[in-house]
């Protein structure tokens, strides 16, 4: 269980525990947005620094995993957009200067790009789910916590955890390509 007060106080030792407990959710998002290992490392550092900075805005009624996942998705999406815009501008400049071929960045294989794009779409769709569904999915599936722990963290029953996950998965199914279901 997260000690919300201690988290908000900003004790470094406790924050380290939080990083260890919730690293999977944050890294899963960063892996989808980073284009290289260095990118992923930068994103991880930025997201955790941002989480520390914004720790006081963490509400009492949500789970920390869900909050961190949303924070990571928002930050990574903004960063991705900025990098894409910057690259677009740079490519336009180089084209005008006739240097495009000399400076073109090496591209990832198309398959990997498609996979990353699909993952980014998934994180955005997850971010758009109702809070309880998103939190249950993050804690159970992404962080791999047992149902009892998820129920305790979310302060709901195990049956509610199950139904929130089921509803969330069914909503996300369409994104992965299995056909949306109401």
């Amino acid at each position, binding site marked *: 269980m997260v000690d919300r007060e201690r988290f908000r106080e900003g004790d470094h030792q406790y*924050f380290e525990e939080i990083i260890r407990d919730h690293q999977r959710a944050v890294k899963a998002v960063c892996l989808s947005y980073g284009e290289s290992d260095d990118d992923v490392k930068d994103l991880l550092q930025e997201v955790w*620094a941002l989480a*520390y900075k914004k720790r006081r805005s963490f509400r009492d009624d949500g789970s920390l995993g869900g909050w961190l996942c949303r924070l990571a998705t928002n930050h990574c999406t903004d960063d991705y957009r900025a990098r894409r815009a910057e690259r677009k501008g740079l490519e336009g400049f180089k084209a005008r200067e006739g240097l495009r071929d000399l400076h073109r960045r090496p591209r990832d294989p198309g398959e990997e790009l498609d996979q990353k794009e699909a993952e980014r779409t998934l994180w955005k769709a997850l971010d758009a789910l109702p809070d309880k569904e998103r939190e249950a*999915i993050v804690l159970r*599936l992404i962080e791999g916590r047992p149902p009892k722990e998820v129920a305790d963290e979310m302060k709901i029953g195990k049956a509610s955890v*199950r139904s929130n996950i089921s509803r969330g998965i069914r909503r*996300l199914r369409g*994104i*992965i*390509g299995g056909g949306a279901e109401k």
Partner: protein
Amino acid sequence: MNCPDMERLIEIGLGQAVAPELNAHIQACGSCQADLRTIGALAGSSAEEREMSEDLISQIIAGLPEPDTPSRLDWARGIQLCLTWGLGFVTAVVSVVGTGSIGQVSRQTALLLAVGFGGVCALVNLRAGLQREPANGGNSPPEPA
């Protein structure tokens, strides 16, 4: 055979063994396959892939700003809120008396309005204070848009 419940599918997605009978059902069931694909995408291929190195965790912790000192902050915040409330109260009283509208409303109503206005000012101040970021030594990332 009926579709297994979501928890069973999650366990399978997280790597638990599948009984041959259930496996046969999943191979033939589009709905279970779609659920498993979604679960697989969320759960990732391995837990280790989503863990950070000790070095990186140390770097992150080393880069964090020092936490605030709560006691000093609480006193400062309390005094600030009282002053804001007082200022709001005085402003409301001066406004009511200054515009000559004291004759049109009862004293109790005017007092209530002034207390209320002071309270609103204090709340706005409190909210602004909560949203204000702590001093961070300039090493935090830019705000998301």
